[in-house]
């Protein structure tokens, strides 16, 4: 969660902004990594010939090699294949979490900020509670309540992000509402819904986008954390957090931890870079 970094506005001059538009190589690399992850999650079969679920028991715990890029696990399954096939679930669950956070939080913030008054007060208390409970603790409690599987872990992660999005959305809405062009639209007799839809919503969502991208990376980590504690899908699912969690039981064969951890870190890092870049070029 980087509320902090998100809130520090870019202080670059116009020239600086132009310069940053010239896309840096790290951004290209980040986009390439994210594109690869998306490809892995859509058509995993194109990237590997091995079976993610059925291994060759005799080939268990092999070290990384040309044949098995990330080595094999305790049941003789190719770890690279398991990572590739686990991408879909890891990425889509993070997506679910972000959508829940953005939609529910955004709606609460939008309504609270736009209508003010008692709507604002009621929503404010709700959001206060969500913000006062540590995010990971909140996710753990929610996933306990709705049952342990990856989709539920994603929902829990989304719920834990609702407070953040509600708060940011609300302050953006208030800022926009007070802006001159919106006030003049009020004076010209535009309907509330029209103003909300035409002016407030697009303006506010512009600053929510980079935050949502950032939250996507963060959700991958939170969901991996939940999977690590055993609150996600059980094996033979191969979510990245679960792979790391299984790997920790076999520390003598460290690639079982390092390979999925490396993929997780590379993905989250890329997503964070992209979020940063979006914020600067906005």
């Amino acid at each position, binding site marked *: 969660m980087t509320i902090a970094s998100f809130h520090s506005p870019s202080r670059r001059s116009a020239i600086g902004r132009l310069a940053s538009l010239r896309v840096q190589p790290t951004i290209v690399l980040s986009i390439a990594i994210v594109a690869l992850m998306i490809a892995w999650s859509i058509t995993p079969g194109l990237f590997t010939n091995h079976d993610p679920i059925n291994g060759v028991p005799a080939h268990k715990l092999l070290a990384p090699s040309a044949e098995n890029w990330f080595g094999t696990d305790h049941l003789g399954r190719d770890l690279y294949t398991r990572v590739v096939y686990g991408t879909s679930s890891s990425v889509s669950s993070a997506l679910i979490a972000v959508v829940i956070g953005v939609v529910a939080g955004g709606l609460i913030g939008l309504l609270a900020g736009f209508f003010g008054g008692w709507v604002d007060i009621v929503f404010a208390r709700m959001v206060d509670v969500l913000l006062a409970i540590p995010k990971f603790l909140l996710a753990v409690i929610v996933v306990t309540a709705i049952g342990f599987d990856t989709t539920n872990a994603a929902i829990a992660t989304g719920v834990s992000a609702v407070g953040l999005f509600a708060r940011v959305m*609300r302050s953006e809405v208030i800022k926009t509402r007070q802006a001159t062009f919106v006030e003049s639209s009020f004076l010209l007799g535009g309907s509330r819904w029209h103003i909300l839809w035409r002016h407030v919503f697009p303006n506010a969502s512009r600053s929510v986008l980079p935050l949502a991208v950032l939250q996507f990376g963060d959700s991958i980590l939170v969901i991996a954390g939940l999977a690590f504690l055993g609150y996600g899908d059980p094996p033979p699912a191969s979510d990245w957090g679960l792979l790391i969690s299984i790997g920790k039981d076999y520390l003598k064969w460290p690639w079982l931890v390092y390979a999925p951890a490396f993929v997780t870190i590379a993905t*989250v890092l890329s997503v964070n870079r992209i979020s940063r870049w979006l914020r600067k070029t906005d």
Partner: protein
Amino acid sequence: MSKAYLNYAAKRLIQAAVVILLAYVFTFVVVSILPGDPITNVLNNPQNGFTPDEINEIITAQGLDKPIPVQLWTALSGFLTGDLGLSMRTNRPVATLIAEVLPSTLVLASAGLVVALLLAAVIAYGTQFLPKRFGQGLLRGFPSLFLSVPNFVIGLVLIHLFGFQLGIFRVIEPNSFWATLFAAVALGIPISAQIAEVLIANLDHESGQEYAAVARGRGLGQMRLFTKHLLKPSSLPVITVIALTIGELLGGSLITETVFGRTGLGSLVQRSVSSQDLPVLQAVVSLAAVVFVLVNLIADLAYPLLDPRVKLIGPSARRPATADEGFTDLSKAVTP
């Protein structure tokens, strides 16, 4: 302290109390969604050989068949009078359980915070004074790297490297000095990233300001400049970030304690979660909310004392940019 300020403070306190109470009720409602509790779970395990009649008799005797609102009311009235109840899993008072594990978590969380602050300061200092071409860009990349590494991975790597390979600490004695230090590093690294990002942003801003240029002109030493002129004004938003990260320290301790095998609040939550020990979960969530609310209150009070430029005219004046009055001060902007 002006009268207006005292009024404001009183309002804040009431809001805080409401938030804590709601957190307690929220936990109850959420955990009650899924049926099951530690007692019923034990009875349902076929290895224990209870007959259906026995199971029903015990459940009735324990009052577990009462409607949820009645159970909530019983729990809530206890909570309001300071009684946290009995843990259903261990049959021991919740207050005793928490008192047993709290010191360990406090040590870990404060050590984690110290590590985070030191790391953040070192990184921030580096970004200001290292040559642009050499190292600075790398250092500026550190916070995003730190934020991208799952903290259980950091923990596993530290244990593998320093515990087993180098033998610096005994993994089965997680409360020893070195084990605590490495646990604090695992906990502190992601948090240092957030503090460093704010610190760097503010240092960049402040160093562009006139007075820093003047100071530099006077030929002050770089370190002195950093500490005397830059760190202090820049630390204002940092204090706010620290207040916000307290929750993450508690949340992060859940995983860090599990990885390092420490007995603390986090591992208590984990054990309680796996058996749905509601009274303990409610107490821990409320405690976290209490800590969060208090720390933020303190941060707010410290704010005007640290920056003479902030005047106590009214609450909204203290928090420019994205002030959100409706959402109390649990939420605040960190932009200077």
